[in-house]
């Protein structure tokens, strides 16, 4: 009876997994990533993306089973795997019967080839898919019966291979240049040729890497919860700066561009600009609890101010230097923040979000329109913005520009961090929790809100100014509502109100898609999904701020205990 119900659950889980796998295929994700090999000639990332769905589902499903049911767990896993394959098999068959591509543009022959393992006969290919999915899910469910230690080491090995394979393009380039610099370029190339082939790791090195990673995973003793807390590095403990952690980090940050090279430095700079914006929005949304969807407006204002002040083209007014213009951009953006803040003072929650969205759209429409064309260039934007320079040193290369971004980020981090623990920061948080109570406690809501808006805007203005002079030309199309959504997503994924969260969020949401460039098209799909999943599963984010974590996971008993102390 009970077993029957479990089978039914497995069947339902399998259908869910099937729909997800079907979506991944029909949206073109699988095919797109099929070009990226993980292990050269053996596995592509497209296959991984399709097969990972039933594997993870089967793993999770058996994990939640009772001990006695786990014995038959692998069978449930196989059921899930087989069920997952059903929608895909139907897709394969449908593609042979009529021209499905007329409707679903991404169901291409190469997708079908991927799903059928290149079999000519669709039915045979479908069967192969079904069997292999069932088998892999069976194995994945079976891992629960392995000793904990072996299971862990296997995972370490698999994940390492996956990461190495995924980023082999970057790794190739880095290994070549770093080893090349040390041992000469022929040695660098030789190493690369041994390890990688057509932008993926070769089979034999893959096995070696897997073996090493597995062994390392096997030997590593997992930390207990207490040790984890202890090893968490804090820069400041009891008011004392921990030089032991600060100095290595500072050195690393200083030499980072040398390690990264041009392309990765460029990516880092983009991440840095988003960190700046994220820190600003974090003040508005995270600290003060005001959901601002028109945040891109300040970014645009910062960028346009920089452009107008410094450009050497026809639209530039003063031909100022970058350093002189920078504070002006920040001040203009902050003033814009005040101007936006005043009309929306009395609004709360969702209405505030929509009004700010409206303001953002108005500004972006005005920037494109012919009305302001004589001042901001309309759709053609503003060109010939000089890069920052000191004396004769022009910050042209991303490796050098990195230091400008770094300085901005460090400054913003410092300001955010000091503000968070200041009187103003506490006022913001009080306001976030309950406006009426905060007001009753004597907090001047108007001042507090306007300060949140203007400081948040100032950060974004700084980001915009650096952005403008980094690109040397700006166009109104780069300032659309999607940027606001990107920034919102990254602070939510990182953890609302958490400063390290902003950095992690920006690195994951902005940095990762730049490394997996095929991904760019699907970025917003993932962001949308992430926003939903985060709110459902982990509303405090991956690197939660302490206050938020306590709030969201506190039970009544905790409060009683705290009150009793």
């Amino acid at each position, binding site marked *: 009876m009970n077993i029957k119900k479990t089978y039914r659950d497995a069947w339902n889980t399998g259908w869910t997994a099937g729909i997800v796998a079907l979506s991944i295929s029909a949206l073109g994700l699988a095919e797109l990533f099929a070009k990226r090999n993980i292990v050269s000639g053996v596995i592509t990332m497209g296959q991984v993306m399709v097969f990972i769905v039933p594997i993870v589902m089967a793993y999770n499903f058996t994990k939640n089973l009772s001990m006695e049911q786990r014995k038959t767990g692998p069978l449930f896993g196989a059921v899930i795997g087989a069920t997952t394959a059903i929608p895909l098999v139907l897709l394969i068959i449908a593609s042979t019967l009529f021209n499905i591509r007329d409707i679903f543009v*991404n169901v291409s022959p190469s997708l079908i080839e991927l799903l059928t393992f290149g079999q000519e006969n669709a039915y045979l290919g479908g069967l192969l898919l079904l069997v292999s999915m069932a088998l892999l899910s069976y194995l994945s469910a079976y891992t629960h019966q392995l000793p904990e230690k072996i299971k862990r080491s296997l995972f370490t090995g698999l994940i390492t291979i996956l990461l190495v394979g995924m980023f082999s393009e970057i790794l190739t380039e880095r290994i070549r240049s770093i080893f090349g610099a040390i041992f000469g370029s022929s040695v660098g190339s030789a190493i690369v040729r041994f390890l990688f082939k057509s932008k993926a790791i070769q089979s034999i090195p893959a096995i070696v890497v897997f073996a090493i990673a597995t062994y390392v995973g096997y030997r590593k003793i997992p930390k207990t919860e207490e040790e984890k807390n202890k090893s968490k590095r804090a820069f400041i403990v009891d008011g004392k700066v921990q030089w032991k952690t600060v100095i290595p980090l500072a050195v690393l940050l200083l030499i980072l561009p040398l390690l990264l090279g041009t392309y990765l430095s460029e990516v880092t700079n983009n991440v840095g600009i988003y960190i700046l914006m994220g820190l600003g929005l974090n003040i508005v949304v995270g600290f003060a609890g005001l959901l601002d*969807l028109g945040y891109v407006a300040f970014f645009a204002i910062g960028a346009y101010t920089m452009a107008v002040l410094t450009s050497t083209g026809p639209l530039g007014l003063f031909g100022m230097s970058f350093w002189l213009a920078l504070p002006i951009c920040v001040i203009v953006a902050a003033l814009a923040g005040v101007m936006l803040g005043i009309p929306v*003072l009395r609004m709360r929650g969702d209405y505030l979000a929509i009004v700010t969205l*409206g303001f953002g759209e108005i500004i972006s429409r005005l920037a494109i329109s012919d*009305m302001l064309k004589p001042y901001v260039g309309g759709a053609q934007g503003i060109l010939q913005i000089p890069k920052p320079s000191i004396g004769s040193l022009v910050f042209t290369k991303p490796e050098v520009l990195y230091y400008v971004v770094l300085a901005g980020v460090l400054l913003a981090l410092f300001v955010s961090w000091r503000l968070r623990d200041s009187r103003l920061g506490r006022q913001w948080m009080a306001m976030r929790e309950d406006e009426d109570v905060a007001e009753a406690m004597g907090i001047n809501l*108007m001042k507090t809100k306007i300060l949140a808006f203007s400081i948040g805007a100032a950060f974004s203005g700084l980001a915009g100014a650096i952005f403008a002079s980094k690109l040397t030309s700006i166009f109104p199309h780069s300032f659309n509502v999607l940027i606001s959504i990107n920034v919102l997503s990254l602070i939510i994924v990182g953890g609302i109100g958490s400063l390290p969260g902003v950095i992690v969020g920006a690195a994951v949401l902005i940095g990762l898609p730049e490394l997996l460039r095929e991904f760019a098209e699907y970025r*917003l799909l993932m962001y949308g999904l992430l926003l939903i999943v985060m*709110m459902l599963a982990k509303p405090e984010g991956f690197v939660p701020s302490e206050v938020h974590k306590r709030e969201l996971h506190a039970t009544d008993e905790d409060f009683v205990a705290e009150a009793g102390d």
Partner: protein
Amino acid sequence: MTRSKDFDFVGLFLWVFRAVILILIVWGTYATIADNPYETRTWVDFIIFGLAQGSMYALIAIGYTLVYGVLFMINFAHGEFFMAGILTTTVVITTPLSESGFLNEQPILSLLIIAISSMAVSIFISVLTERIAYRPLRKAPRLVPLITAIGASYFWQNYFRGLFGSGIKPIPQIEILDGTIPLDFLGTTMLKSHVLVIVTTIVMLIALNFFIMKTKTGKAIRAVAEDKDVANLMGINVDQTISITFATGAAMAGIAGVLYSLVFRQVHFFMGFIPGIKAFTAAVLGGIGSLPGAAVGGLLLGMFESVGPSLFLRGLGIPAFNQLKDVIAFTMLVMVLIFRPQGIVGEVLSEKKA
């Protein structure tokens, strides 16, 4: 309620804001009328176009208003239900119907098939969205479902983009909708597709009114909007009723999608977002939570948008004033939300709703 002296400063700022907008409008209108650039016929055409456009906004706005009435939440993803209608129409009309020639042999039947399939897809994704992204968070702080709604909006947008591609797709002309009909008493003509839009909207609104006011399910929706707990005690399945509310709104949005694609005949996946926000403006303009309000708000917004650029902005001497159509809509959104969040029809919101 008496507040501190800061209140006056903000009040003053808002008054200046209001006055500037008002002066701009009056000045622009005066200058345009004095200049008299168009014949009466052109103005009538603007108004007809505005009515057609406004009807679509009204249909979309219904969804915002229904959901807000029941859950007090802005369903940010509602624009995507509209977009789902648009893209389904495109797919159904081009691939099976137009290619086989069935479209022009049996136009009425074809339109029915298109309408039903678009509504079905819109309803399906709206119910799915509600089930996954909103229902588990009903007790969460109010910003949380708003954030998932934003997430759902971007998710569906890009999901449909992935399914059907990102290009702009043309829609074949249906022969019976080609051309115009004369309106002699106004001295102008009207596009047949606009007639279809206005007639369909009126029919849908009457049907909706019947559904909400006269059927048992409609009564359940009203009861849930009034008080969920009491409704539950009265034996109403609240979860199911909320799903039905979402489905009703999505059906209207689906129909609006069909009409939109038949009128504009060029579609792509990003088309739901801006009309969605505008329809939200319409819903607030008419007083969110009120069904007649949504209809009135939609029509008003449509008219403003179509007459506005030529009437206010032309007089101000703004070049290429038609580019600023959206600015008018968004300014209205901002103004209404700041100055009159209860809407012009004026259902005063209770403390809980505001």
